[in-house]
């Protein structure tokens, strides 16, 4: 132990060093992800080659389709929009220690609410859009409450309750879409929301709407919440060391509810983005196919983004780009969507274990070092 008192400047000076270290770690993490990506795409290329496709052309298509021109970029961002929100649902919950896979159901309910309000409430554009978003956020949050309540009072694990509520939402929506919200003239979908409640394309010829700002705004809010507010501070305690939660003076019951409610809000908004924020239909399809799988894709997004709101934005853009790029992979290289799925799956699996590639690198490095005499280790201070 060092009896010498530490001077305040010194603490901060080392903090700067610490911050540099963190930056280095972050860059290292990014590098790991990039390596994983290269490996995933490499395996994908092998598979495509094996199946007789031109993988170069396919990847060219992937790039052109996702970032090739302003439309491609806008389409990528449009695909990313709901994923940011559903990613946040999982990410926020994971930070608070819950495995919340209820985004799918909450999103469906949010979409229903957006239809109900957007199609039936005539109001000036800004008001209508705002109300539709609010209604769907509220609906998502309400749908998240029973699992939270069951968790808090009956100890029902969120995995089971959210899976069940996803299905309950699914069937409820199937009913409502066909029987209550249906469009009499075009019964394969619900009524369309009124023009005043629609967000138009920001760039003509592409699907991106102002909904992207809502998604990014929610992500920024979640960031603020987690790292700059006492409630988020408590959520993170719940996720890391729940026994310390009561010691820290927090109310665990309230913490569960708050987490689920906020996650539900985000999920509900995700549903709304597909209704009022995605041309051309502005309605929910009878087989719910315009919100299909977005909730589950959010899990991958959250995890690739390391459950960090800003990471989630990047991960959603990445997955969105894969989706948008799939189009040109099909058109340019004739690669069927199923083959594209194999590439997606491989890339995601490769992303699961970034450490593997670092280990691999180390292993190769060690093999090289064994051949050459090792340089003296850099002298570092003993860390006490």
């Amino acid at each position, binding site marked *: *132990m*060092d*009896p010498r*008192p*530490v001077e*305040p400047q010194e*603490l*901060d000076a*080392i*903090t700067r*060093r*610490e*911050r540099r270290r*963190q930056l280095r770690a972050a860059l290292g993490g990014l590098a790991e992800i990039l390596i994983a990506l290269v490996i995933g795409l490499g395996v994908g290329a092998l598979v495509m080659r094996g199946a007789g496709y031109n993988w170069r052309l396919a990847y060219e298509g992937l790039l052109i389709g996702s970032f090739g021109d302003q439309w491609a970029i806008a389409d990528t961002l449009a695909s990313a929009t709901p994923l940011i929100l559903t990613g946040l649902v999982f990410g926020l919950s994971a930070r608070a220690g819950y495995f919340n896979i209820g985004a799918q159901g909450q999103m469906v309910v949010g979409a229903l609410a957006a239809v109900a309000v957007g199609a039936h409430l005539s109001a000036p554009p800004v008001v209508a859009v705002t109300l539709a978003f609010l209604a769907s956020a509220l609906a998502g949050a309400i749908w998240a409450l029973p699992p939270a309540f069951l968790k808090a009072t009956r100890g029902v694990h969120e995995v089971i309750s959210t899976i069940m509520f996803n299905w309950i939402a699914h069937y409820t929506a199937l009913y409502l879409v066909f029987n209550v919200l249906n469009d009499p003239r075009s019964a394969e979908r619900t009524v369309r929301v009124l023009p005043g409640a629609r967000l138009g394309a920001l760039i003509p010829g592409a699907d991106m709407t102002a909904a992207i700002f809502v998604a990014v705004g929610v992500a920024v809010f979640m960031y*603020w919440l987690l790292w*700059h*507010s*006492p*409630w988020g*501070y*408590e959520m*993170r*305690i719940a996720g*890391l*060391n729940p*026994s*310390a939660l*009561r*010691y*820290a*003076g*927090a*109310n665990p019951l309230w913490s569960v509810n708050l987490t689920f409610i906020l996650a539900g809000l985000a999920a509900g908004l995700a549903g709304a983005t597909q209704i009022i924020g995605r041309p051309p239909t502005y309605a929910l399809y009878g087989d719910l196919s315009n919100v299909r799988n977005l909730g589950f894709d959010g899990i991958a997004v959250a995890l690739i983004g390391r459950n960090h709101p800003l990471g989630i934005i990047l991960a959603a853009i990445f997955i969105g780009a894969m989706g948008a790029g799939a189009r040109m992979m099909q058109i340019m290289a004739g690669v069927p969507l199923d083959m594209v799925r194999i590439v997606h799956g491989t890339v995601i699996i490769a992303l699961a274990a970034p450490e593997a590639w670092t280990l691999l690198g180390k292993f190769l490095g060690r093999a090289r070092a064994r051949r050459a005499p090792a340089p003296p*280790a850099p002298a*570092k201070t*003993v*860390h*006490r």
Partner: protein
Amino acid sequence: MPDRSAPPAGAADQYKPVSVLAGAPPWLEMRGITKVYPDGTRALENVDLVVAKGEIHGLLGENGAGKSTLMKILSGILPLTSGRILLGGREVSLRSTHDALAHGIGMVHQHFSLVPTFNALDNIILGRGALLASPARAAARARIRRLMEETGLHVPLDIPVEQLPVGTQQRIEILKTLDRNVDLLILDEPTAALTPQETDQLFTVLRGLAARGTTIILITHKLREVLALTSAVTVLRHGRVVGSRLTEGATAQDLARMMVGTERMPDVKARREHQKSEPVLRVAGLTVKGDGGQDVVKNVSFEINAGEIFAIAGVTGNGQSELIEALAGLRPIARGRVYLLGQPINGKSPRELYRMGIAHVPEDRHRLGMVAQFSVLENSILGVHHEPRFRRGVPGTIHWGKVRRYARDIVRRFQVVTPSLSTPMRSLSGGNQQKLVVGRELSKSPSLVIAGQPTRGLDVAATAAIRDLLVDIRNEGKAVLLVSADLDEVLALADRIAVMYEGEIMAILQKDQFDRERIGLLMGGVRDGSAAG
């Protein structure tokens, strides 16, 4: 292989100190051990440790000196960065505990390695026997019963260990390793949660084992124990060997000097005398239930005055933990009334209790008192994070700048050694973690401080620092409730001592009644006529 069937008592008498320093041939040799943790921490730098067969060797050093790291390498838990390990002259490769156990090396861990949902029996038989065979519980039970008799370490075999107090877990941890009949027994602070009597009996057992050829390495911060038990010691400082010496002829001062590098052997701070003031905490007929639903604190009454350290002594597991949890609002009060400065506190939440002036240094700092993954900065406001003084303009926003100043202040005042405020708490040494927790609690300017085992596992200097802090707040006229299994600590600090046994207070002793032997008897449940609980 020591023969467990031989009677231990006779063997213990035969123990003759052996040591390489006294000419015995080396048996275990750790040569040039360097350990760099993945985060870059150089925990060990070219360390040598040589021990003879049948030796009891002490390993000393301050918190963070690298003792546990060295022993974890030896027990196969950690890979070493460079260096060699030889057993009986042959180099061995210890890449897992499985390897180490195969070489007869077993370790009692500082942070217990027990499966919380298993009972003691299953923890002890874990990892043994043929994979597809039924666990040999009956045979093990008989064996452990015998071992418990022999060692005096008694534990319930059928209760999940997570429901057992720390002291009992410690005993299980020791039994688990003893039951493996290892040739090299490593004990990392085994006595931190034992009573003096248990410690004595354990030492008798260890001497017996050594007499029969078991080699023992003991890590402890209690110099008395080192002097009582070991043949020789090796001292580490900052990851390097300071030196080794024979225990014979050494004094506590000598050892402390080697460890700390100074002459000073810290003393407890002078205490200022107060005139009696009104009670801060009044506990009347308090009953608390344990995790199993049974009464573990039974109808307990006492008062703590301002300017007083009121200590609760007792073997761990006699209801002290539940008592403090109840007083800190973490466990419901079953019956009875508790008043803080005249206000009832029954049913209040920890946050309300904090507002009323209670600070709590929890017994189990890893589980309760901190969030290991949080930075020092973030941990410094655990429990006060919601306060307006850390807010900024945007509603509800934590002003990290203000927090930083607050944290810096704690770190400075309480001499927490940390590279920076952004360092994760888990990379601090145990002593510094504890200093931060204590500092944070004392910074709440409380009127009552509840301190559970505040110096457990800390080195000499850190212990002294924490004890000084407790005396300081007492001197400032605040009340302190100290719960400690360390009788020395209780005797050194307390103004009054209550002894707890099986949930009851056996006696409350005034300063002039302090008497080691009498307290020891009370802790063992032996009542004397003068003071019945």
